């Protein structure tokens, strides 16, 4: 037998709550008595025999009906009208005829339409972005509507301030200095706005969290006895070693291996859906590439976090360092991968960056990795279908967020869906879809988030 909590609100705003109401058996008559008794406790002008009327969904509730039949659900708010003659008004029309009114009401049972409240969507657990925006804990702040509106103003009026914030973080500053494209992406108000939008959009966040959970449970259920961390470890290290062996004079990594010898070695650049390929374009390439490659398809930003953890392992660091300090080895590794090579040829500046051991080492710094992971998460979110799957790397770097082509074509199917739902303003629809990365559901919520008016 499940019980519910009901709130009773009086015209003067006073509120009482009845816990443990069994709405399927409690009649309105009994509920009135309970409410009257409760009101009498705190209000001397009311005694338990006072005529208390209950109003819900625009009806005076009939005595013989049960609360459930009246549509009362958990946390419903029922209005209470007390007819006593204690008010100081001059008229005395409030007589005992009230019950007649109640009885005469042709109230029928109401099934109670479901009322989904998206506002309850969890915000918690999202740790990303703090670093990217220049301070941990920033995320909690972002959930504060006031702060958010200030950020919005900041974005539209003073984008350079945000850039300063970014640059005040050493890791970010270096990354941005080393890569102008990243810098411009990160200081583009529109990109930033989308990032924030995602961070603060409950439905997008909820989806993100769900994907996260799914990815994590997938990892946990992985057969073969690998725990997630070990998997990360071997995925990254083993390919590196293999590459090192090919290039004969690489320093031999000393880290302990826990690899199952039969386990196929993943391609360091593959797996992550072209993460490396797309990756180099805008991001500090080595970091983006390696972390993506190591992660393999189906993993997520949450794993990048783990990878950062892993990078704190001294042995791992040593191994990576030795690899990193050998530019030739690295280059040969890059050359092994056609996509990467192509990219290098197209972008000499990037080649230079990638061949700089110092830069690479910097990128492997756990702090930086973590910051990047968070950024990737953000970018990933803002992308249509970006999600967590292998596409992270690639999606992140499609510049900067929106897919190519006129929005009418890119979002053609979403636009027609919105049209079917009755949203006829093409302009608004496009704006909403762009802001939500093409997510129709989120776009609808966005379109609906306008305040109602009032003329009284």
């Amino acid at each position, binding site marked *: 037998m499940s019980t519910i909590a009901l709130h009773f609100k009086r015209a003067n705003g006073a509120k009482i709550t009845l816990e443990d109401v069994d709405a399927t058996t409690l009649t309105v008559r009994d509920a009135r008595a309970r409410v009257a008794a409760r009101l009498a406790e705190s209000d001397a002008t009311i005694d338990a025999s006072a005529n208390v009327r209950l109003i819900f*969904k625009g*009806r005076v509730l009939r005595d013989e009906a049960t609360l459930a039949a009246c549509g009362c659900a958990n946390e419903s708010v029922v209005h209470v009208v007390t007819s006593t003659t204690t008010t100081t008004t001059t008229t005395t*029309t409030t007589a005992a005829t009230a019950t007649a009114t109640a009885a005469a009401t042709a109230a029928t049972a*109401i099934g109670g339409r479901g009322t989904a409240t998206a506002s309850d969507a969890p915000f918690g657990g999202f740790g990303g972005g703090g670093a990217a925006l220049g301070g941990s804990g920033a995320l909690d702040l972002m959930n504060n509507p006031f702060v958010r509106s200030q950020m919005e103003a900041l974005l539209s009026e003073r984008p350079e301030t945000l850039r300063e914030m970014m640059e005040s973080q050493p890791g970010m500053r270096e990354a941005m200095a080393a890569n102008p494209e990243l810098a411009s992406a990160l200081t583009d108000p529109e990109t930033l706005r989308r990032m924030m939008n995602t961070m603060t959009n409950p439905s997008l966040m909820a989806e993100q969290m769900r994907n996260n959970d799914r990815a994590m449970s997938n990892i946990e259920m992985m057969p073969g006895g690998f725990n997630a961390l070990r998997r990360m470890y071997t995925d990254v290290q083993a390919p590196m070693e293999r590459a090192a062996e090919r290039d004969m004079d690489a320093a031999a990594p000393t880290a302990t291996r826990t690899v199952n010898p039969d386990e196929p070695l993943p391609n360091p650049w593959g797996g992550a859906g072209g993460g490396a390929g797309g990756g180099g374009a805008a991001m500090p390439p080595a970091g983006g590439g390696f972390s993506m490659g190591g992660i393999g398809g189906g993993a997520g930003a949450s794993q990048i976090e783990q990878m950062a953890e892993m990078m704190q392992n001294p042995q791992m660091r040593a191994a990576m360092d030795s690899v990193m300090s050998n530019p030739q080895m690295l280059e040969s590794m890059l050359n092994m991968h056609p996509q990467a090579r192509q990219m290098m040829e197209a972008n000499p500046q990037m080649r230079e960056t990638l061949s700089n051991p110092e830069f690479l080492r910097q990128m492997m710094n756990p702090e930086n990795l973590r910051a990047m992971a968070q950024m990737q998460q953000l970018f990933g979110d803002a992308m249509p279908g970006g999600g967590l799957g292998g596409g992270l790397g690639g999606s992140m770097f499609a510049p900067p967020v929106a897919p190519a082509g006129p929005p009418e074509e890119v979002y053609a199917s979403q636009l027609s869906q919105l049209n079917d739902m009755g949203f006829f303003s093409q302009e608004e629809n496009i704006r909403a879809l762009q802001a939500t990365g093409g997510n129709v559901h989120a776009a609808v919520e966005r379109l609906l988030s306008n305040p109602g008016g*009032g003329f009284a």
Partner: protein
Amino acid sequence: MFGSSSEDVVVPRAFKLLKELEKGEKGGAGLPPYLSYGLADADEDEDMRAWTGTILGPAGTTLDMRVLELAIECGSAYPERPPEMRFKTKVNLPFVKGDGTVDLKTLGVAQAWKRNNSIEDALNAVYHAMMRPECRRAPQPAEGTRY
């Protein structure tokens, strides 16, 4: 949320009414304690046309503390046009016709209506009109009398 002039968004009828329904049924935040409304038949009325509402008569008027019931009709033109309201509880008010129908023109709602107004706004307008000088002292039928 960001940089969007959401005032321009035309919320489709069904979405708007669902939102209003949710607010009415929660009855909580934002809804004045003297107003209540809900669907007349939540199971059958897929178009969400027929609603019921109650107004608690304002203090200091001859309707003080009376629970006044109304039938509210949100036609297919809603929310472009205001909902039609009809008192079920008998009242004597200048903006209420002989059959209980609320005269939206006399009330002023017909002129002031914007599409982002709501059932709540309409009921609120009725509530406030009850406190107009020509209404507050109007003699009322015995409580419980109905049309």
